[in-house]
């Protein structure tokens, strides 16, 4: 008998299903509504596949050129943001974990800050920074990734840190060093393979956050998937709904993949 059931705190099977059902409804109703809406023929009623099939026509390619461009922008932003996470955050975290463990709390605090700052406040602070960014790197959409690199910090940090805590990083790196490995070899051959799940999870979460970001892009006058969806939605709400659905599906698949990685880790460590 588990401790929870001994204390009488474990909900019954029926209660669990009711909770699951209510939560499921809360999340699924808007999605179902979106799916239903994407098949509507118009305000007159009836359903059609035209909105979906229309996306693959040449005319649609011309009409929604800006939307496809925005998807490309978001993809670039996702890649650059992930690169920032992998090239700056990950080495910093490993360095702090191995060499400066006293700085762990400070790093955690810094990384958590963005989650406590509303996006609108972040933009107010970023606006003058971006005048410098533009003068240094130009006004390309990809520069938005510098801001996204900050907004994804809390999520990426958590994903990597949980993996770092689960692996004896210090002992493994010391063992590798004693066997003749240089620091780059330690990182590439010993640490990264053991941090793969945390790194992938951080990357996928970063992609999900970037694909769903609207406020910063909108207020800094950049076009990404979300700002384009808003624009398209004003002229063709069905297409906006379809793309919103596809983006949701993509993010859902990413999260499913993270979940599977987590369960694989649990199985292998049990």
């Amino acid at each position: 008998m588990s401790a929870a059931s001994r204390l009488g705190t474990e909900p019954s099977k029926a209660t669990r299903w009711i909770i699951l059902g209510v939560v499921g409804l809360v999340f699924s109703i808007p999605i179902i509504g979106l799916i239903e809406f994407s098949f509507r023929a118009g305000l007159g009623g009836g359903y059609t596949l035209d909105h979906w099939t229309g996306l693959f026509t040449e005319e649609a390619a011309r009409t929604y050129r800006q939307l496809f461009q925005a998807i490309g922008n978001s993809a670039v932003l996702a890649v650059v943001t992930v690169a920032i996470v992998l090239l700056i955050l990950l080495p910093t975290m490993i360095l702090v974990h191995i060499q400066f463990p006293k700085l762990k709390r400070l790093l955690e605090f810094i990384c958590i800050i963005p989650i406590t700052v509303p996006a609108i406040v972040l933009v107010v602070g970023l606006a003058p920074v971006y005048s410098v960014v533009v003068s240094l790197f130009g006004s390309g959409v990809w520069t938005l990734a510098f801001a996204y690199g900050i907004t994804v910090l809390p999520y990426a940090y958590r994903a990597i840190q949980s993996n770092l805590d689960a692996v004896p990083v210090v002992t493994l790196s010391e063992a590798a060093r004693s066997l003749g490995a240089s620091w780059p070899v330690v990182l590439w051959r010993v640490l990264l393979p053991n941090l793969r799940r945390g790194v992938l999870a951080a990357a996928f979460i970063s992609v999900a956050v970037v694909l769903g970001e609207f406020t910063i892009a909108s207020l800094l006058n950049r076009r990404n998937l979300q700002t384009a969806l808003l624009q398209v939605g004003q002229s063709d709400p069905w297409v906006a709904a379809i793309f919103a659905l596809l983006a949701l599906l993509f993010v859902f698949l990413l999260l499913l993949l993270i979940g599977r990685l987590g369960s694989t880790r649990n199985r292998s460590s049990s």
Partner: protein
Amino acid sequence: MTNSIPTATTIAPSLTSTGSDDAGATVELVSVVKDYGSHRALNAIDLAIRPGEFVALLGPSGCGKTTALRALSGLETINDGRILIDGKDVAAVPTNQRDIGMVFQSYSLFPHMTALENVEFGLRMRKVAPAERRTRAEEALDMVGLGTFAQRFAHQLSGGQQQRVALARALVTRPRVLLLDEPLSALDAKVRVQLRDEIRRIQTELGITTVFVTHDQEEALAVADRVAVMRDGVIEQIGTPEELYSTPASPFVADFVGLSNRIPGELADGIVEVHGARLPLLGELLADGPVTAYVRPEDIVIVEAGIPATVVASSFLGSLRRTQVVLQDDTLLSIQHEVDIRPQPGDAVFLRLKGAPVSAVPRG
């Protein structure tokens, strides 16, 4: 998962000292100082280790033994002093270039590699050809009795097996010095003794200079050629296990190495008088006066007539029996004797001190 230890095979020529010109290096720590902030972990320690010698660093937690080992490995930088391997100062040489083998207290096998790949790692770093690498790694695994476990991952091995693979991994590169940082402390008692003996056998056959850190005095005395007893960042005494046990240089060593009874006595002219027995003083001369003498349990015997005592408890320890008795002045003593003498709690007995030399400290 089984905890059984397969029988190790004989050591392959590629792993023996004759296979390398570098085996059996001299190691010297010269006035090594290591500070952690305001805390001095190593206080100008000096240690000279002969080629092929097995030296144990023994001491309580925080005495600096692991720091000394890590300084030797390069995992800790030192504030002052010199670290010489074969006469060459390596204090500024990074760990990966010191040519050492190291086994850690916690399990340190790379989890994403098989046992064989783990053992091959050091050879891969030295750019050994794949075929030779494989052969040598297999021989090293055979040496520690795990030849049939080559394709297993760390989580498929018991603690003892993981430490054996770690030992094979440390030795396969034929390092000049083998460093063992409490490699047995996470293992259960039986496996610990098996692996301890195994380490000693392999070390003797390879002739590799070895430094072994432990807080377990029995472990240190059992395997080492010499034991360095450390306390508060200094080496209190270094000597063979027999020297440490029979002629401890200080009360701390007497107390830490083996069991000692603390008995009040009077010191005069280098002789400690304890309950009528005259015991020569070991170590530094003290001022005459009241002292506390450190007397080994086996240096007190049960006799027909002598110091009266009452038995408190008696334990059977296999080849001997250890009995606790209390004297009339309430001093509690441990004595060791043959198993066929079976004192019962409450029995009145008489004791005699054999007269073996003792350490002592002034009694305030």
